[in-house]
């Protein structure tokens, strides 16, 4: 970027890098990470991101509680996780260093904003002495950079108020990292112009800070080299970078188009699901009606009402909200109306860890309603997979007239990956027909409508919406007589209806489970949801180390694939990593009497590939010595 390069630094080609930007929650680390991700995506790298933010909007400045981080991994090969340990850590202040240093790989590069390491900040972070010069950082390649000062100097010419001047330092950091990994500058300059349109001073300040960071890398004689990560061999086509919540929202909207039904979302804001409400609220031109309800129950109840009216209805939430919706979902089970519930799981119990992922709502999704109240459950395995799973959930809901729960989590919600855009014309038609005429006769031979007369194949009942002539009928939570839907307290009828509701869900068409990797291995890894990336990568590492492992990953959790018992029964050992205390293990054990072994992790952080690899390697070694 400078007219004349002051010195020639070697350009080293590397196959991947994992960078973690960490700073105060007001420092703009998410924006910095997002922008670095966008540039890298455009360069054709494969990538995966992991944002990490505090539950508080602005925790006290400079404290450990206020640290916000964004990890991005870019590579020239196919990846499925944001990486275990960052190889580069950018720490904007002592708190960020203290909170994040343990993540940094041994010998990793540490870029610190030295200006922030004053007595006050050190004390707030709980450092008794300055880690920059007390040996704490001896195991790392540390690059001290006075980011605040250089940023202030760089923006001085734009007349920015002193207290605002430092706010551009995230762009300085982005500039520096862009130089280190030879990212082009133009996309970021364009981004700044678009993002801050109309605020000339902000544009000028951020542009200057960004350029200062880039030039600093080139001219300050502290770096030994800069690096290049070549494009990954991705399948040819058009890509976008998508996170799980966006993909889920888009999937719901597209499902409405594929079903030719108006979309309705009833929702109450809750972390980490709110972005679904936001995204769908911005798509009113698709005829999407969003309703920010007074509470979680009303959100679900409004969706039931909309479904009765003939809409493709959704409600989005997280664990605490799903608990509140339980009774309403059992109503939907009883009314046999299509409804899709999006549960973006987070740490619990109670408020728990609102911004951290967990997979501990599985049992609640399966059984968290009173009485016998079965409904299908599906789970996406990656951010982009959320799109397909949303459409699959809608397909099941519509075809079988049932509520369906989608179990995503806070990790999938906010992390992103490149997504090869689907061919819109090849998406499935999931439309169903409303009932329009009589489906029975009374004793006089007159036509009548039987709202609970089932399709013999799917056991779905007819969906007759208000406005349809002659098909007026009442549905309700009280037990209904088979066929007529009239209130019935008859013992035999209740048994029949309980059995029918269960049979309908048991009969949902679910594709067979597929085995990835070494089909004939002794050990199979079993997983569901967001652990897919770590399990898949761990299986890869184990194979490189000479082991054989199979991997079965479930999209459909209820009903389970029909062949699952047979498939898992073939292995000497079945190991299931889950971010819970063994919920899928328990379900599979109970259903198939297979002794599934649990690998658990419930610390609010997704499994790393290394954690899964190590745990499974131990098991494999035990197996081979047995």
């Amino acid at each position, binding site marked *: 970027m400078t007219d004349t390069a002051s010195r020639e630094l070697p350009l080293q080609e590397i196959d991947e890098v994992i960078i973690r930007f960490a700073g105060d929650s007001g420092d703009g680390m998410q924006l910095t990470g997002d922008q670095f991700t966008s540039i890298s995506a455009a360069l054709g790298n494969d990538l995966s991101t992991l944002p990490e933010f505090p539950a508080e909007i602005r925790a006290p400045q400079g404290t450990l509680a206020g640290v916000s981080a964004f990890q991005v991994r870019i590579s020239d090969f196919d990846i499925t996780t944001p990486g275990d340990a960052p190889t580069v850590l950018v720490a904007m202040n002592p708190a960020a260093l203290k909170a994040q240093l343990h993540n940094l790989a041994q010998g990793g590069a540490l870029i610190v904003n030295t200006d922030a390491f004053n007595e006050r900040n050190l004390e707030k972070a709980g450092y008794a002495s300055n880690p920059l010069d007390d040996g704490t950082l001896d195991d790392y390649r540390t690059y001290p950079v006075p980011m605040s000062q250089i940023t202030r100097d760089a923006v001085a010419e734009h007349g920015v108020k002193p207290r605002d001047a430092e706010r551009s330092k995230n762009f300085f950091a982005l500039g520096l990292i862009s130089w280190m990994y030879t990212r082009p500058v133009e996309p970021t300059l364009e981004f700044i112009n678009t993002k801050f349109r109309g605020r000339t001073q902000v544009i000028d300040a951020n542009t200057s800070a960004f350029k200062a960071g880039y030039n600093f890398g080139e001219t300050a004689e502290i770096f030994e080299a800069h690096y290049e990560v070549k494009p990954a061999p991705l399948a*040819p086509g058009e890509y976008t970078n998508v996170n799980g919540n966006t993909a889920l929202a*888009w999937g719901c909207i597209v499902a409405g188009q594929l079903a030719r039904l108006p979309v309705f979302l*009833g929702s109450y804001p809750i972390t980490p699901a709110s972005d679904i409400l936001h995204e769908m609220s911005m*798509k009113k031109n698709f*005829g999407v*009606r969003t309703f920010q309800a007074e509470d979680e129950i009303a959100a679900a109840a409004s969706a039931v009402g909309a479904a009765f009216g003939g809409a493709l209805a959704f409600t989005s939430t997280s664990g605490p909200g799903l608990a509140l919706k339980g009774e*309403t979902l059992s109503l939907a089970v009883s009314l046999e109306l299509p409804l899709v519930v999006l549960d973006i799981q987070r740490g619990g119990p109670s408020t728990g860890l609102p911004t951290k992922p967990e997979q501990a709502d599985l049992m609640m999704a399966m059984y968290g309603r009173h009485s016998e109240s079965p409904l299908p459950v599906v789970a996406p395995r990656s951010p982009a997979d959320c799109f397909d799973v949303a459409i699959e959930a809608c397909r099941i809901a519509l075809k079988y007239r049932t509520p369906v729960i989608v179990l995503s989590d806070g990790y999938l919600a906010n992390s992103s990956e490149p997504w090869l855009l689907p061919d819109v014309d090849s998406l499935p038609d999931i439309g169903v027909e409303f009932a329009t005429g009589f489906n029975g006769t009374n004793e006089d031979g007159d036509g009548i409508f039987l709202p609970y007369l089932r399709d013999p194949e799917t056991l779905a009942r007819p969906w007759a919406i*208000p406005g349809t002539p002659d098909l007026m009928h009442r549905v309700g939570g009280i037990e209904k007589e088979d066929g007529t839907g009239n*209130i019935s307290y008859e013992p035999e009828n209740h048994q029949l209806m309980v059995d029918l509701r269960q049979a309908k869900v048991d009969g949902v068409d679910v594709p067979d489970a597929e085995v990835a990797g070494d089909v004939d291995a002794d050990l199979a890894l079993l997983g569901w949801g967001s652990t897919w990336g770590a399990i898949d990568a761990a299986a890869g590492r184990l194979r490189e180390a000479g082991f054989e492992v199979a991997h079965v990953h479930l999209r459909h959790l209820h009903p389970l694939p029909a062949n699952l018992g047979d498939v898992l029964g073939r292995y000497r050992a079945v190991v299931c990593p889950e971010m819970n205390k063994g919920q899928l293990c328990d379900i599979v054990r109970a259903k198939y009497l297979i002794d599934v072994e649990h690998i658990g992790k419930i610390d609010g952080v997704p499994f790393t590939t290394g954690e899964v690899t190590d745990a499974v390697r131990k098991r494999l070694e035990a197996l081979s010595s047995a």
Partner: protein
Amino acid sequence: MTDMSFTPTTQPGDWASDQEVRWCPGCGDYSILTALRMLMPSLGTEPRNTVFVSGIGCAARFPYYMNTYGIHGIHGRAPAIATGLAMARPDLDVWVIGGDGDMLSIGGNHLIHALRRNVKIKLLLFNNQIYGLTKGQFSPTSEIGKVTKSSPMGSLDAPFNPLAVALGAEASFVARTHDMDRQHMMDTFRRAHAHDGAAFVEVFQNCNVFNDGAFEGVTKKQNRDANLIPLRDGEPIRFGADGEFGVIDEAGCARVVHTADVSDDELLIHDESKHDPSTAFMLARLARGPFEPTPIGVFRAVRRSEYAMATTRQLAAAQQKQGAADIAQMLRSRGTWFV
């Protein structure tokens, strides 16, 4: 009140379902059911475009008895279910039926939010001041000191005044009627139906099993003259066999007076379309309970943006601005690159 130019296409019988009505003999709900079935043909609507939504309780069985579309939901949630339905289908007539426990206790939150949003649903609260279906516990409208199975020494809970709650929630239509006067019920329900927004009607309803005679002090024929105050828009508020009583505004409080003691222009003129709800609130709180002069009729009917149509207008505006639905465009909206 009937519009003579209108020829009904249905008869009251067309609105009755084939289900046996199973309220206790003598229940006030029967007369409300009859009033609604008789009213329906004159509303210019049809059973197929009408939906009754309810929660749980004796009143909530109502939808089963109407030959319309209907949802018998779960306790308290009927206003929320109806809101979703009315938003998805602004073309429908949506009625919500519930009791005092359903709408003011477990579903109180949904009631106030449905009212403030002004979504076009008609909410009829059958107030019998008792829990009937669970066999006789005190309700959120029961008087303090009520002795019931769950309050053997008398209830300690101060009751809600349903109309005051509705007015406090910015309801655009608030009315009261009672189960002993079919014509008054029909007139009131007709007004509620015509209202373009959320309409809230409290119906004094007798539970002859668990709270018999709760409203007798005002609804029994011989008590009506002395204790029912019919509200008529634009007219001075007078009541009594010979109009010998009236209501005045005394420093912000409604007070009953002998008309002989005041000049005519001191009487409060009822103005249901007055935007400021304080006069309606004052009237709602005139009686301490159904044993002293109590206003009935339409307390408030004001125009306010209707929620479902406002939602529809936003959809149209978004189409205008963002263009019609285009999946391919949406999937590319965050930028793309080619490999």
